[in-house]
């Protein structure tokens, strides 16, 4: 029975020839183990931080016009998205390794179907959580970046300033919603406080308090 399950999984995941399925499966497991042992997220993190640094440096020190500043802001965004990918990779579980663990147990006659189901459900939940963390943290960084960019843009560039403010507000909203979905069932609190800036304008201060992990 276990062999049948292995064959079925391999045919789904590898799509290889019938003769080569076993070696492909072993290679795949080895690759997955290797990626977890070597912390493959570090590659994304390094690229992201590099792109972010170039974007930040260029934005504040290369004063050759609005178009170039927008290009540097796009580089900052790409950097943060890569950092987000690293956050996901650092937090994601491996459904493949969970499956392999249980298949090995079945091979040794110690298989537990209920335990297999429970671990798969746990891996699914962890994957969802990892995606939410990626969105929450990368949106929060993007929001802060856009806000600082808006403040540093010259007053006469109203259009660019408004674009950054629009992006900052919405990324903050997405981040707050993602943090809430991560920690919402525990003690997280989101509060919105109106602030009167002047007689003509009103602002809203959003704050989120999270439990210490």
């Amino acid at each position: 029975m276990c062999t049948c399950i292995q064959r079925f999984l391999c045919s789904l995941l590898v799509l290889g020839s019938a003769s080569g399925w076993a070696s492909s499966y072993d290679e795949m497991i080895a690759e997955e183990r290797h990626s977890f042992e070597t912390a493959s997220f570090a590659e994304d993190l390094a690229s992201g931080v590099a792109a972010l640094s170039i974007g930040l440096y260029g934005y504040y020190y290369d004063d050759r016009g609005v178009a170039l500043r927008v290009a540097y802001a796009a580089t900052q965004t790409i950097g943060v998205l890569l950092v987000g990918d690293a956050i996901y990779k650092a937090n994601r579980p491996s459904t493949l390794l969970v499956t392999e663990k249980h298949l090995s147990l079945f091979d040794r006659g110690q298989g537990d179907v209920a335990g297999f189901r429970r671990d798969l459900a746990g891996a699914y939940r962890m994957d969802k959580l990892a995606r939410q963390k990626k969105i929450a943290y990368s949106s929060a960084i993007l929001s802060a970046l856009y806000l600082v960019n808006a403040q540093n843009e010259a007053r006469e560039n109203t259009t660019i300033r408004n674009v950054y403010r629009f992006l900052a507000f919405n990324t903050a909203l997405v981040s707050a919603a993602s943090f809430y979905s991560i920690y919402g069932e525990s003690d997280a609190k989101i509060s919105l406080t109106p602030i009167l800036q002047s007689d003509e304008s009103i602002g809203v201060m959003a704050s989120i308090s999270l439990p210490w992990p």
Partner: protein
Amino acid sequence: MGLQSSLFETQTLGVCVSMVATTDHHCNPAYIPAEHKLGFSLEANVKAEEQGYETTRSLLFETLTKDQLDSLFQEKDFLSYSGHLRLEARYDTLSMWYVPVHAAAATKISNPSLPELALTAFKQSAFGVTAAHAFSLSLPWTSAVLVGTDFYRYDRTDIHVDTNIVEFAVKSAEDLTQESDEEDFDVNIGALLPSDRWYVPSVGLVGRHLAHGGPDEDRYLDLRYIVRRSLTAGLSWSYHHSSGVYSGGFKALYRGPSWELDRDELGMALSYKIGGLQSFAAMSPLSRGFGFLFSHAIYQVGIKYASEKQDNLLQLERKQHVYLYTKIFM
């Protein structure tokens, strides 16, 4: 829900308010896309004409000078340009959007014996919220009616010049230019009854600029029709087959205080979509065109070739124009 065939979008490659020399097909705020429930999008649409772009840029972003007006007297007899940029953040059935710039301009030289120059330019930025809701409905061909509204604040600048070569010689640029600024709120309302069966049409209704439609000014050259109060009604059919999705439909636009039918805005369109590629053709009394739209998971690019004229008095012969469209999703 079979709404991808909505002809409001097909005819203008998804951009609803930026065509100068053709009909102003507007998207329907009731439209709830099946995908991209949460995310950001950036879309841009421009009329690809460099000379028109230069003229518009100088009109809208620089102070109009005598030299620029003088150069316009030497330009082509008719020039027009339009461009539109839109950012949107979508949260399920609610979206927040910002249009940093929606610009349009047109110039016309007439009467060769005593050249007259008419020039108009329009620049607008707007920030708004769109909310849509699906109400359950038990009809054999549909399960819901969609209703939506745009509520937005706009900041609009209008520039007009109507002069002739004699007046131009004796007056300054400031005296020749009429400029007005306007800031206000406006609202659009839409409804859509989608159909699951190919022989029953989907029905769409869109009322636009209902709060501040702008007065019908009598000018020789005017772009304010873009923001006039209007009601658009559309019918469209869609047939899903293994070889692709075939769609076709009609639309009519009613304007003014008595909601008269605008015959120049009657339109029909045909579309064929297979995978990520869509080809379409659209026709109205003032515009004929065809184009292609390529859709990917994170971007869309499109091109529309159009043969069009502004109206029967201003521009007798048809001109070929190209519109470019791009949209990026995050």
